[in-house]
């Protein structure tokens, strides 16, 4: 038990929080038919992260989160502006902005010298779940011991904060968000400031992407934003099941990835462990495939 708490517990918690938050907010991307925007936002935050890091010189979560939110805000405004000014479809404007922002981020990485800090490409792609350990844990009692809890990886604090904010946001603004996803024109005719709601939603998604990014890497953030929501989209006709089910499925995928990464190859008689992040991604993809199969069979009946 102590081994589990010390080696796997923090990673399990991080994967579940990241998966749950991304799975929750992903439904709004999928329902608004804007799945690409999750990809875009998670890349467009890079210049903000670098600036946050360069200004403070700290590899601490909060300056980077603030920088990322600033970049996400700019990116959202830029996408809207380019759509209007150039009369482009949403996907084209989104693609333009996120490649531009990501490129700017890469340049800033070089210019500010942040590249020499420890932004390593494996970590960017696949995250660092395996490095999240809790060496202060000495048994179940540690779960209630403030001194031991303070030794939990700092990423968990950010992940938990963003997860809580996302849940409160979705629960509190349940009805405006539903209307915004279903019929933005009608929402506007009622006097809702649709543009402001979109910015707020995008900021939540950017915050989730940044918090989850450190734990599970950039590719998996995108998978977790899209896969659980897409799978639920194929499985249910009910809005509440779609939204909260997406969160549950995302958290479940995160847990399964961490818990199975070791035992799964062992059960197959293989002499290595899998990357937890990679396994989460694979399971997420498989879930969508299974949902699609079930849906096909259901419709054939």
């Amino acid at each position: 038990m102590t081994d589990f708490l010390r080696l796997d517990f923090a990673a399990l918690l991080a994967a579940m929080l990241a998966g749950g938050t991304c799975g929750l907010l992903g439904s709004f991307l999928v329902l608004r038919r804007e799945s690409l925007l999750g990809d875009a936002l998670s890349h467009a935050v890079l210049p903000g992260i670098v600036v946050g890091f360069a200004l403070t010189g700290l590899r601490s979560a909060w300056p980077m989160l603030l920088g990322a939110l600033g970049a996400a805000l700019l990116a959202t405004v830029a996408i809207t502006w380019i759509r209007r000014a150039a009369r482009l479809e949403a996907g084209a404007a989104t693609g333009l902005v996120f490649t531009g922002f990501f490129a700017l981020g890469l340049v800033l990485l070089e210019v500010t010298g942040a590249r020499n800090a420890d932004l390593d490409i494996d970590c960017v792609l696949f995250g660092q779940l395996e490095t999240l350990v809790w060496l202060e844990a000495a048994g179940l009692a540690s779960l209630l011991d403030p001194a031991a809890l303070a030794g939990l990886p700092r990423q968990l604090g950010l992940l938990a904060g963003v997860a809580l904010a996302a849940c409160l946001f979705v629960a509190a603004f349940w009805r405006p968000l539903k209307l915004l996803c279903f019929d933005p024109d009608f929402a506007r005719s009622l006097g809702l400031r649709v543009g402001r709601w979109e910015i707020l939603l995008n900021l939540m998604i950017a915050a989730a992407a940044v918090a989850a990014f450190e734990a599970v890497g950039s590719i998996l953030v995108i998978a977790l934003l899209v896969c659980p929501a897409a799978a639920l989209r194929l499985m249910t006709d009910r809005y509440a099941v779609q939204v909260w089910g997406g969160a549950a499925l995302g958290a479940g995928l995160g847990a399964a990835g961490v818990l199975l990464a070791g035992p799964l190859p062992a059960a197959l008689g293989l002499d290595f462990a899998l990357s937890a992040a990679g396994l989460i991604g694979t399971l997420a993809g498989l879930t969508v495939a299974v949902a699609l199969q079930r849906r096909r069979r259901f419709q054939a009946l």
Partner: protein
Amino acid sequence: MSAPPVEIQGLTVRYGERPALTGVNWTAAPGLTAILGPNGAGKSTLLKAALGLIPAAEGQVRFFGLPLEQARPRLAYLPQRASVDWDFPASALDVVAMARLPRTRWFGRLPRAEREAARAALAAVGMADFADRQIGRLSGGQQQRVFLARALAQEADLFLMDEPLAAVDVVTEQTILAVLHGLVRAGKSVLMVHHDLSLVQAHFDQVLILAGRVVGAGPVAEAFTEPAIARAFGGLPGRTPTEAAA
């Protein structure tokens, strides 16, 4: 004499460089008005620009003598059915209840009384039995009636409707027309983008005929004339009022 439901002055709307509507001056009389014209005449554009859904290059619109923001609680909008994704995971009642959002706090659950108001609106269009059905499992006509119920649930004085009678079944057409006449009897006004010229004489009080600008406007008996229709539709055979009414 109270202010007219809609008063449009010098309204011009452009999509990029291309003008969609040019210099529209028009004042609606109370009652049921059909907005007629060929495809691309700017009918939907007029409704959307009036409601501020798309920006107007020039001009102003007043409702009951008030600017849009102040008049909003008295307006209801029924968009084209094709403008939303009907696979969306929502029930018919969910969709109608969306109309009650401005009457409630934006956070938390929908109060029971609001839910009952939405249910009553569904009943008014003959859809009470379908309240809990997912909207994708309704027929096209039933979906159109759900949209009408949502507009009714806004409890407005002026209804702006974008083709509620397009491609619907007979039951739906009868239901919608009955509801419209009921609204007018109750002193409400309706502006409706409409395609089927054969229904105009029997059911509408006024027409506004568009072809990128105002081609004709006024009471049906005076403005719904062969030359006006011919000007708007480019004199297409079989589309004149006399033939359509025959």
